């Protein structure tokens, strides 16, 4: 039965995310796809040229198509013509690899949810890079003088790509334009930047157009981007953003430096000048290699930053790709090894028919090994992508386990906060408890004892607004609000969808746990109250007794003592009398005796109430005195020091009670009483070897109850063990220091 997590509070993002209409979003995505296809097409032309250089029939077909007076004919003719001046195969592989990697990265970025501005721009930039810096594709384009349409389309595409690349480098990573000036001065700055970009265009006026394009793209964009990122790095911001800016600044700086070096050393002249309007078919390989290198640095740096700082949620995509790529590799490897390898070795190469059983064997191995391999690869991919961070589902399952096993122990909440922080990649996570109409912070991760937020009153059925958090989720159980979970991410970061879902799921799971925690808290406070009241009662009782004893001592006892003294004086006076004073002396003697007895009784009574000996000399002496007076023989071992009043009283009266019980029920027994310090507390054991009593027969009686009351009021324990015919053992223990009420649920 899912608990409701009805309301979710997201702190308003900084005002960069203007709502974008669905139509606009659709248009953007359509354009992204179109750009991608155009780039892919241009790159494929280069591939086609290389293929035509290997395959004469394809080359001839291209020429036949090339005779068509259509745009397609021009394309085919270009491909056919350039197939004679293709790069060497390794160079071609480098070019194509470079372009395909950039295109692949751009495909990843397509999946970024709307809300991150830098991602789509970066995707456009990567696609532009893939097209511009593919030398083979460029050669295909250059193979024919271009029609106006072709020039505008081709160059326009490249200019657009360069522009978006520059924009991507400027707005990365948070989507804002920099610097944060007023609009007019900022536009002025941008105009100046564009003008600066045109300088290399002017310097390179003599160079072929594609060289100019390459140089401007390769120098201008890094320069603009580096300036923007330098500005960002020096402004205050979240640590993650500053690190990303620094990373990109370094990458762009290196790229710009390489480009400037190329410009200064005149590398562009290694490209054959378009000799005075004549067709040139020489490929400026060096130039392109240099700029490919320069412009690989940037995406590499970006993706390193992305994985380090979790900027775009490409994690699931990447893990899936890794897993499936590895699985494909696994399946292929099995087939290769079994069919080709084993087949080759055992059956000799070229045995076609015998491959069927081997193929079956390979299929069997794949079928059996698929699941384990997938599981293993998922773990590896997760470790690669997430590092020490758990995947969202690991977080959830870990949390469930903790909730299950930790019931309501002290650090459950802290662990909850820890798991929450880890799972969402937040700087800080808090767990709040709703107690007494207040939302109180109960646990924080990372632990921060110095700074705790103030409790917030709950006025509505929903959780109150919590400041300075990125997201807050209410925790409910069966409709009742028990608390809240909040996370604080670095500034300007939002939770990804995955993380939001995780928070909601954690919130649901946390309902029961928080309910238990609250119950436990309440229980604990009740227990505290209870103990306090018991102590009060006991203390009151003791106080009363002491008072009584005082009164007796000061009052009745003193008077009796005075009477005894008077009687002694009367005896002396009677002695000096003549005549038959014997009956008088006898009477006086008797009176003295009775008074003494009364005094003795009073003393005993007082001692019974609260022996002064105990207060004065402690347990050892007081108990020894009692032991001597008892009717059975008691062996006492009480070599202990002094303790506080309550403890001594408790031990004394318990032992007394035990002695009395033994005297009453035990018959002819010998008794040992031991008092010692153990386990940071005082323990007393009174044992007798007598007849014992059946506990079930004899009601615990006031004695046993009294002992238990006294001891438990002090957080002590009592244990009475008696078997008929074997004796009784009373063991009690009182801690020396009272600890706060610890709650142990069964």
């Amino acid at each position, binding site marked *: 039965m899912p608990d409701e997590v009805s309301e979710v509070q997201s702190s308003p993002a900084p005002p960069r995310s203007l709502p974008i209409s669905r139509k606009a979003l659709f248009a953007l995505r359509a354009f992204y796809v179109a750009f991608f296809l155009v780039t892919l097409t241009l790159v494929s032309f280069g591939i086609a040229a290389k293929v035509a250089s290997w395959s004469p029939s394809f080359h*001839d077909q291209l*020429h036949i198509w090339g005779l068509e*007076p*259509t745009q397609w004919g021009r394309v085919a003719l270009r491909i056919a013509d350039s197939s004679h001046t293709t790069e060497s195969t390794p160079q071609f592989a480098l070019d194509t690899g470079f372009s395909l990697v950039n295109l692949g990265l751009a495909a990843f970025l397509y999946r970024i949810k709307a809300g991150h501005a830098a991602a789509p721009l970066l995707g456009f930039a990567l696609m532009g890079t893939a097209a511009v810096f593919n030398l083979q594709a460029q050669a295909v384009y250059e193979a024919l*003088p271009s029609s106006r*349409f072709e020039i*505008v*389309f081709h160059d326009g595409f490249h200019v657009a790509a360069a522009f978006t690349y520059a924009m991507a480098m400027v707005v990365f990573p948070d989507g804002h334009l920099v610097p944060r000036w007023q609009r007019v001065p900022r536009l002025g700055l941008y105009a100046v930047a564009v003008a600066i970009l045109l300088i290399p265009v002017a310097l390179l006026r003599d160079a072929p157009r594609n060289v100019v394009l390459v140089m401007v793209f390769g120098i201008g964009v890094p320069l603009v981007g580096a300036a923007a990122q330098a500005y960002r790095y020096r402004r205050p911001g979240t640590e993650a953003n500053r690190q990303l800016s620094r990373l990109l600044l370094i990458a762009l700086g290196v790229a710009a430096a390489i480009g400037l070096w190329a410009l200064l050393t005149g590398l562009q002249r290694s490209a054959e000048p378009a000799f*005075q309007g004549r067709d040139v078919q020489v490929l400026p390989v060096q130039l392109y290699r240099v700029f490919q290198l320069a412009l690989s640095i940037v995406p590499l740096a970006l993706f390193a930053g992305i994985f380090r700082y979790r900027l775009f949620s490409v994690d699931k995509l990447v893990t899936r790709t890794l897993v499936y790529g590895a699985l494909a590799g696994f399946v292929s490897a099995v087939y290769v090894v079994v069919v080709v390898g084993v087949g080759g070795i055992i059956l000799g190469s070229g045995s076609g028919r015998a491959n069927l059983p081997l193929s079956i064997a390979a299929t069997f191995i794949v079928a059996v090994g698929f699941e384990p391999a997938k599981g293993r690869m998922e773990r590896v991919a997760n470790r690669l992508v997430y590092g020490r961070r758990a995947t969202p589902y690991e977080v959830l399952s870990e949390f469930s386990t903790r909730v299950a096993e930790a019931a309501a122990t002290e650090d459950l909440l802290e662990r909850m906060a820890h798991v929450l922080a880890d799972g969402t990649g937040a700087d800080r996570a808090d767990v709040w408890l709703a107690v007494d109409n207040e939302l109180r912070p109960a646990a924080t991760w990372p632990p921060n004892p110095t700074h705790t937020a103030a409790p917030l009153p709950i006025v509505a059925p929903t959780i109150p607004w919590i400041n300075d958090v990125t997201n807050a989720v209410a925790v409910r159980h069966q409709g009742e609000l028990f608390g809240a979970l909040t996370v604080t991410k670095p500034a300007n970061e939002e939770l990804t969808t995955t993380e939001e879902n995780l928070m909601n799921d954690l919130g649901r799971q946390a309902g029961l746990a928080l309910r238990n925690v609250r119950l436990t808290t309440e229980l604990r406070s009740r227990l505290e109250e209870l103990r306090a009241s018991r102590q009060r009662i006991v203390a009151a009782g003791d106080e009363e007794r002491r008072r009584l004893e005082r009164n007796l001592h000061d009052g009745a006892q003193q008077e009796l003592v005075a009477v005894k003294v008077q009687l002694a004086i009367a005896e002396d006076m009677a002695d000096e009398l003549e005549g038959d004073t014997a009956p008088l002396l006898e009477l006086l003697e008797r009176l003295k005796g009775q008074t003494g007895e009364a005094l003795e009784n009073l003393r005993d009574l007082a001692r019974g109430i609260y022996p002064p000996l105990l207060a004065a000399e402690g347990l050892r002496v007081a108990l020894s005195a009692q032991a001597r007076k008892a009717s059975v023989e008691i062996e006492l071992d009480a070599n202990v020091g002094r303790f506080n009043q309550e403890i001594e009283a408790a031990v004394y009266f318990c032992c007394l009670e035990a002695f009395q019980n033994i005297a009453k029920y035990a018959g002819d027994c010998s008794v040992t009483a031991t008092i010692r310090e153990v386990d940071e507390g005082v323990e007393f054991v009174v044992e007798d070897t007598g007849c014992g009593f059946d506990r079930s027969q004899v009601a615990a009686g006031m004695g046993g109850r009294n002992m238990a009351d006294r001891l438990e009021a002090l957080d002590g324990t009592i244990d009475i063990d008696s078997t008929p015919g074997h004796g009784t053992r009373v063991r009690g223990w009182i801690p020396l220091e009272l600890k706060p009420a610890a709650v142990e649920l069964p």
Partner: protein
Amino acid sequence: MNATATRTVAFVGALCVAVTVFSGCNSSGSANTLTIQADYAHDEFAGSLFGFFPNKVTVKPGMTLKFHQTWTGEPHTVTLGTRVTELAAPFRDELDGYFDTGELGGEPEGYEGFSNGLPFFFSEQGVNQTAAQPCLARTAAQLPADGSACPNTTLAPFDGTEVYYSSGFIPFEGSRGNTFDLPISSDTKPGTYLYYCNLHGAPMGGEITVTADGAASKQSALNRQAKREADRMAEALLEVYRDEKAGRAKFKGNIAGSGDERTADVFGVVNEFTPRTIRAAVGEKVTWTMIGHNLSFNVPPYAPIFIVKDGGEVAFNNQLDEPAGGWPGRAPPLSDDPDAPPPHPVHVEAGNFDGSGGFKSNGTGWATGDTYSITFTKKGTYPYACIVHPGMIGKVVVK
């Protein structure tokens, strides 16, 4: 996605859409037009193939034949008419055979009458305006014999009855951009009409078959046939060119141009400097064997050899004129006397060149085997070209 990125992307998108919409394609593949290639740029060498590819096409009245010329430096015309057909009658069979097989024997019987009876692109005065300008002559009187332009230089759809119908010099519109449209009138009588280029002669020609009931040629079939014929012609040229590149050919060392006995009967030519890059030391004499062409350093940007002036006159492009006093390195004039001992091979020592100023070896009068030598006195890279042929470029790297 925030507003900034949306604006950026919208701008870029609008740019691209505008480009696509307002530039438009230059395709013109309508069902009513068939395209024939005039000349052919082979992709393995810069050169000229003097022919129309394919040289035979079938059309229906009302269609248009588009002649698409790949500019290789050579001017071409498309010339038809009853006079062309009549004068070619004596050797029509051999011509047909050439169209079909690509094998050219010597000059056939009756060819001289053909050449003399039709306007030729050049005259003693220079460019023959009759031949070089468009001409529509329905009667013999409308075809001047004095080299002046035809009275009617505006063409109408060809209907087969014209005495002389010529495109004139197909003007240069950029490499691979020259086109000439030949509309076939809907009342053209079915039959086969011969056409040719009046600069390069009858072998650079073809046949247009007009049919009323049958089917017109398909463009894809025309393209395939074009490729076949072009490859056929280029075969011998390629063989020799490859040999030259490998150093196995008749002439060793640096060669300007290409060809030997194997290419003598091929109606096409490779226009290349072999090797394209020559490495030399300062003070070292660099020698080329000239197989036609010229070597021009520091020449103006490429311009076609002929221009069309305002008013329609076709003239030599004066950008390519020599300065007063001529360029250094002019070859000695050829002797007109066929009995005089051959002045060739001629060896021209052009002297020192330090890279400044214009420098051009004279292009006419070379015969195969003549040589031309230059001594470079300064370090540097010196690109040069043949002034006539745009793809014919090379460079000397002097260290």
